[in-house]
């Protein structure tokens, strides 16, 4: 039987104009995503998913813009390949969040697991709390696209590995306090493009990267991103609390890290 026809009478799916409310309890990701693609094709632009628990690839394969609110714990590869869709997660996201994302927005009211933003090419990811290991590896920018990840808490080792473009900002906030909570190792190993801003932590960086203080230009950029961050999470605006010498900037020393290694 058609999934939609079975869910609707039981009140698990309510569609009203371009808004849909869906109880995802027990749905397999394949069913859930197919249903979302169908809703999207029928003109639904806002979907609120309840009781999400472990369903993978939410948002993947959608052809039209959609705002997706996820309540619960979405499964791995949340928003993989998305192209302009916006996903708001109330809960923690697991591994692979924003994998190979092309454009759009992912806002996680909680933490994300490992390898968030892998090979991300555009769009933005905001994480209220912490990010796992290998954040934003192999991010690249191209043309008008520039991927951005903002993490409120700390990030694990190897962030920005192989990074070829884009921006990662790690604020290192701990709830209510402005103290630094992270000390990732191997930051930016193999990095050959883009920039990582880190606040208030000792940097254990890879070869081929430059670690410097931030300039006014950088701070302006950081400010606007921090503002966005605070807006997304409805936190008190304390942007001015941040001062420039808390930040370091990590950039590649070369766009050709492998030059000369082989002959």
């Amino acid at each position: 039987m058609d999934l939609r026809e079975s869910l609707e009478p039981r009140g698990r799916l309510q569609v009203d104009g371009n808004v849909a409310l869906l109880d995802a309890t027990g749905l397999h990701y394949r069913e859930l995503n197919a249903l979302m693609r169908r809703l999207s094709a029928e003109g639904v632009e806002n979907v609120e998913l309840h009781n999400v628990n472990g369903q993978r690839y939410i948002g993947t394969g959608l052809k039209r813009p959609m705002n997706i609110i996820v309540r619960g714990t979405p499964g791995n590869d949340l928003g993989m390949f998305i192209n302009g869709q916006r996903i708001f997660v109330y809960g923690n996201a697991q591994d692979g969040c924003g994998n190979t994302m092309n454009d759009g927005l992912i806002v996680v009211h909680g933490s994300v697991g490992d390898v968030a933003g892998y090979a991300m090419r555009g769009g933005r990811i905001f994480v209220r709390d912490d990010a796992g290991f290998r954040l934003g590896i192999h991010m690249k920018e191209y043309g008008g696209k520039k991927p951005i990840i903002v993490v409120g808490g700390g990030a694990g080792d190897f962030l920005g590995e192989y990074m070829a473009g884009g921006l990662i900002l790690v604020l290192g906030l701990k709830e209510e306090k402005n103290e630094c909570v992270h000390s990732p190792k191997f930051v930016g190993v193999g990095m050959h493009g883009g920039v990582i801003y880190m606040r208030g932590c000792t940097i254990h960086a890879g070869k081929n990267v430059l670690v410097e203080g931030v300039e006014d230009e950088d701070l302006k950029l950081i400010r606007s991103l921090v503002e966005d961050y605070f807006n997304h999470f409805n936190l008190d605006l304390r942007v001015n609390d941040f001062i420039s010498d808390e930040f370091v900037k990590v950039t590649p020393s070369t766009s050709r890290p492998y030059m000369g290694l082989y002959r």
Partner: protein
Amino acid sequence: MRNRAASTYIVLRKEDKCTKCRACVEQCTYGVHSYNPAKNVIESKSWLCSNCLRCVEFCPTGALTITRNPNSYRMGHHWNHEAIMDVKRQAETGSALLEGMGCDGPNLTYWDRLLLNACQVTNPPIDPIREPIETRVILGRRPPRVELKPENRRLMLKNELAPYICAETPILLAAMSYGAVNLRVQEAMARAAIECGTYFNCGEGGLHPELRRYGSHIIVQVASGRFGVDIEYLNSGVAVEIKIGQGAKPGIGGHLPGEKVTEDIAMVRMIPKGTDALSPAPHHDVYSIEDLRQLIYALKEATEYKKPVAVKIAAVHNAAAIASGIARAGADIIVLDGVRGSTGAAPKAIRDNMGIPIELALAAVDRRLREEGIRSEVSIIASGGIRSGADVVKAIALGADAVYIGTAALIALGCTLCKMCYTGRCAWGIATTDAELSKRLNLEEGCRRVANLIKAWTMEIKEMMGAMGIDTIEALRGNRELLRGVGLTEGELRVLGIKVAGE
């Protein structure tokens, strides 16, 4: 120290024939030949020569000969010329050695030690010229059984079958990325694939907008670098291949040096121009087999389960166990790339020493999947060192559904196997993205030659099948009874699952 004394090749020019036309000077991309106006002679720096034979081909008077330098280092078995040369090269540069194409080590070709059966009396051979011999292969996941349901007073399929691709010949064109080769090469391959009813794998460097119109015969590849990978790309071909590894360089990633990342390549790969395009060694979202499953299904979601997903691995020691894991992880097609597999650039140490011959890996994988009862659920594509229609037949008899050919297709285009691909200065206009050099390749001609090669091999395959009394390719797949070995050890025969000739 230039090691001129023992340069591997020397250029001989018959001065009486040379008209000083300077064709060789223009054609050589490695700077071997130069014109000395003072003396009015052409001079050649033999130590730069890679024996690509471009100048010989273009010399209008036939004045040139390239030959192996008789001044080789003292001939040893262990310390042979190549070993000494490599040491000297490294002593000079302090770098790991890089080379193009595949491993050419001795004793790794099992094809030549496998012989095929033919019909005599007990069953009739089939004449391929007059009778149909079917070489069509269907690649994709197969359910274990067909389930039927009655509908409208007849039987219908109960479930829709998984997506598949259908090739009219078991020969597919292997992954070659834009960057490793130029757009003309890719276009020639794609058009040849269309002409022969088969497929071309566009490799990991994205798919140029110009080539998207050939999508119906293109397999798109997703590697760890995720170059050019977005929803549109994934849906622009007929199948998606995840490249975990390749035979030429198992266990390592790849990199396209920044100088090759031109505007156009940067656009297709979706990276900034001039930066090194790095493919990490692993996919960083695949650290284990369950992660592979996750990636496979991510691609299926992204293509709405309409396209088969292949997983390509290098043939390594435990390929059988890995293949079983891949099959169970939900892949529709497994691609095995043997130690002979080629590449645009690989560290020589890795290319020549890592991985195992495709023949052994294929036999082991086929057997393992059969023991587990899942062989018929996935398709296997074998690649790495397939040189002829006979090799294709042997590969299928060992258990492959189809093969990928790379080097052979490049040779059809004009490649002379000089192994200089890594320089990006291919004199034949193949392994180069240089706009001028690329023009050396004629698209129409190239397409015709690759298509010819596939057609010729397909004909050979049909002839051999006919001689064996087989008229469907399915009846050849895994038909080890048709193979016999010569000059193989007990152990090799066991792994190959064949008897010795005469038995």
